[in-house]
């Protein structure tokens, strides 16, 4: 990296003693009893379950907790001063790179942080080029950020942070939304660009294993404080001891025959023609690299888009009761679709429609023609089963990521569909939520439901996939 300016070229020391944070709207402390010393240049992994307060600790270190919104206790210092004063020596990465990119061109975005620091114009572009090279960014400065993949965007965000020569680099689940290949490239870029130990690095991730070669120490955030893991520690395998109900052999419910899809105005097919079968009591896993059309296939199977070539058709059993015996799911009315094929999207919040959890779960049954009382009973039962009863009156948007994921699966189950189509149902989940979601899916399979799961998740493939389709 450029050495033009002194500030931020020296790694910082972080000290926390009895530190805690409470959010304005909550009664419980989000984080408490944190004692931690991070020496300059150290690389630390902070792990722990969803909601343990990992991200809150990172936000506090970054000095970006809104004082109007959070109450602090104890002591937290960066190089002996309050974190707010360390802002200019800070670099940050979070889950969603789209909310970290400011400008519409790659080079401009890296330059943004340098402009803010008051770098003279002439000094900016050489540093931008250096930073882009350091993260292995494969395009030029003029590349529109819109045209980048998730992994490329995340590396661009890293370049934007590195260009400022940060003394403290905070990475908040930077690979949670990336496919395995993209995630590996981001980790490699972090490793390469921090190899000179000019920055103290704190990584937050509930998936500890891939970071282990990169970090010096692993600290777990638990209720009431931190636990430091000994050297050589390995995380518990999330599939360990998992006993899933077996599948059953049922009839073919839904089939795609030579089904392909091309977006209007696009020269290239988003999905080359494929043949696939969703069978009752079995789980079909759809795998393949990014851009192969996995999610597009999910949309076709879910009856959300009409195939441009070939066809997708339901069996007689699945199409039973549909008006005029239409067999193609994309021609079904929404009310007919919802009781036959349940779909879970990658982003759960896109599927929320109401202001209360209970209404959210009752909505599908109501739409498929159930009576209000029956729909309400279904909703209550699901709330109970998924441990969401305390939130029955809460707004779905206010749930944590893991809770939202469980809710979106639950809404799909509420109408007891015979087919479930799921797009990356375990994306970015901690071990506990992961096991809950997998168990829930296996239960559906054992009662004869046919599953189609689009996934990159190797563990999920191991424990659940009966049939595989590689695109």
């Amino acid at each position: 990296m450029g050495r033009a300016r002194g500030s931020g070229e020296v790694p910082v020391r972080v000290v926390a003693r009895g530190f805690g944070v409470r959010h304005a709207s909550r009664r419980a402390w989000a984080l408490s009893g944190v004692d931690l010393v991070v020496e300059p240049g150290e690389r630390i992994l902070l792990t722990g379950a969803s909601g343990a307060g990992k991200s809150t600790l990172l936000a506090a270190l970054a000095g970006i907790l809104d004082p109007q919104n959070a109450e602090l206790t104890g002591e937290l210092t960066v190089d002996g001063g309050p974190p707010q004063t360390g802002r200019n020596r800070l670099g940050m990465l979070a889950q969603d790179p789209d909310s970290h990119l400011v400008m519409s061109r790659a080079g401009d975005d890296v330059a943004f942080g340098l402009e803010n620091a008051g770098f003279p114009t002439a000094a900016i572009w050489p540093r931008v080029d250096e930073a882009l090279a350091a993260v292995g960014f494969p395009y030029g400065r003029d590349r529109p950020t819109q045209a980048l993949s998730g992994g490329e965007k995340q590396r661009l965000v890293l370049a934007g942070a590195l260009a400022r020569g940060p003394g403290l680099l905070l990475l908040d689940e930077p690979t949670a939304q990336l496919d395995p290949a993209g995630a590996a490239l981001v980790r490699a870029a972090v490793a390469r660009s921090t190899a000179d130990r000019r920055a103290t690095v704190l990584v937050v991730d509930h998936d500890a294993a891939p970071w282990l070669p990169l970090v010096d120490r692993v600290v777990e955030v638990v209720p009431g404080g931190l636990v430091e893991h000994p050297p050589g520690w390995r995380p518990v395998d999330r599939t360990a001891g998992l006993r899933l109900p077996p599948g059953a052999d049922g009839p073919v419910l839904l089939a795609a025959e030579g089904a392909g899809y091309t977006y209007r105005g696009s020269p290239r097919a988003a999905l080359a023609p494929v043949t696939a079968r969703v069978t009752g009591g079995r789980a079909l896993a759809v795998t393949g690299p990014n851009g192969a059309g996995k999610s597009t296939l999910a949309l076709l199977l879910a009856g959300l888009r009409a195939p441009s070539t070939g066809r997708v058709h339901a069996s007689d059993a699945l199409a039973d009761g549909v008006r005029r015996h239409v067999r193609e799911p994309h021609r079904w009315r929404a009310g007919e679709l919802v009781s036959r094929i349940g779909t879970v999207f990658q982003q759960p919040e896109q599927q929320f429609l109401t202001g209360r959890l209970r209404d959210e779960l009752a909505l599908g049954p109501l739409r498929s023609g159930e009576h209000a009382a029956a729909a309400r009973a279904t909703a209550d039962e699901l709330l109970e089963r998924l441990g969401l009863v305390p939130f029955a009156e809460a707004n779905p948007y206010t749930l944590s990521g893991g809770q939202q994921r469980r809710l979106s699966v639950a809404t799909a189950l509420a109408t007891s569909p015979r087919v479930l189509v799921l797009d990356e149902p375990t994306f970015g989940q901690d071990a506990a939520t992961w096991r809950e979601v997998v168990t829930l899916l296996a239960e559906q399979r054992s009662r004869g439901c046919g599953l189609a799961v689009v996934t990159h998740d190797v563990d999920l493939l191991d424990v659940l996939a009966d049939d595989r389709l590689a695109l």
Partner: protein
Amino acid sequence: MADSAVRSSSTAIEPQPAPVRWRTVDIVITAVLGVAFGVVFWAWNLAFGVLAAPLAFFPPLAAILNGVYLMPGIVAGLLVRKAGAAIFASTLAAAVSLLLGSPYGGIIVVYGLVQGLGGELGFLLTRYRHFGWGTAVLAGVTAGLSTSLLDLNLYYPVSQDYPFWAFTLPYTVFTVISSVLLAGVVGLLLVRALARTGALSSFAAGRTRV
């Protein structure tokens, strides 16, 4: 727990911060509202052409559709609660509709500015202290008046050929009604619905339960 050896404790949950200093989140969220309503404007411009066609021969009736253009200023004022938020959001919304292609051309930015000033006046009159129904309706009235003034002078100079009560008055009244209903009432309902989703947690509007 909170009272154990506290060295750097900042318990700052104040009722209402001064409306002057803008945090980055205030700027960005106001801009997001401006951009979002710019897209709404773009769509409404097209819909306006269709909806207004049957009403075109009595322009005061078409004025009933004007309220949508006054929404960004009032929503931003109610949500961000900072002096200037209405002007910023309204002007940006107009500029974005221009970027997307507007039948009104560059003058639309002047409209955005004037409509924002109109809404801002309502918040100024309540001194940025109250953000309930009274303020929403008042800002709706002032915003409606501001846009009527421009419309009558720029787009319907023919109104001067008619008696005041036959054109100017009904045009203004319909615009104000539309503004109060769509921008004031719907605007406040929108802000409250947004608050319930937890998306406004960094704003006073997202914390106070009314």
